């Protein structure tokens, strides 16, 4: 299978160290266009989720409007967000205390 094309942003443009040490969440928001099966596939492919976990997150997005699909260091959260946006999901980054 072809690899997902992940365009990684240059390191000089990543956030300062203080922010890197915070916890960042990758949140997927609902959209009315992308197929449920498409969203499940992306979650499995990008995060390595099993079918049950991928479907749970997809349904959370669909029914509650959002799902936190990953949390951790900012640099990796940015990479995941970028990849999800490449697949045209509405993905946003949130930091601790953002809500």
């Amino acid at each position: 299978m072809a690899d997902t094309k992940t365009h990684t942003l240059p390191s000089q443009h990543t956030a300062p160290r203080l922010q890197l040490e915070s916890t960042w969440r990758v949140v997927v928001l609902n959209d009315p266009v992308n197929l449920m099966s498409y969203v499940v596939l992306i979650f499995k492919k990008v995060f390595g989720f099993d079918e049950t976990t991928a479907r749970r997150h997809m349904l959370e997005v669909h029914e509650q409007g959002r799902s936190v699909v990953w949390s951790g260091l900012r640099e990796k959260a940015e990479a995941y967000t970028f990849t999800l946006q490449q697949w045209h999901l509405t993905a946003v980054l949130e930091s601790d205390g953002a809500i």
Partner: protein
Amino acid sequence: MEPFEIALSLPVVAPLLDVVKELADGLKQTLAAPPVLPESDSVFRDLWTQELLAAQNEDLAALLALFNEEFFTEGVVALGPSNAEAIARACSAIRLRLRERYLVPLGDEALEIGEVELDSLDAPTRKAFMCYLFLATIQEYIIQHLDESIIGS
């Protein structure tokens, strides 16, 4: 994933390609789904957006390349490891733009469940909706094959 082919109805699909091409051209300069970024640094935002746009253009080129001479003579399109993911993403981009450009008046609920009275639509909207469904069908084929390869890996 194993390469596979999809047989399409030429008289049905060929007229929809004008819509696909028109929207793909429009997406050369703009993202189908503009990203929401927390970063206030404009250089960072520009880089992020440019990278997404470059990827989007590569994907759209893969989708347009699907409709080659073989399609117009045999009605068949060929997919495989080299183009399936790009085409799935490109279908998503075009569908997002179709909604934005033509289908918003139909309402999101109707779009999500696909319950739209075709006869009640004017010609451009009907064509756009047919295109929306066609691209979803292509995605479903790809998802089925990619899913099998993920399960099998």
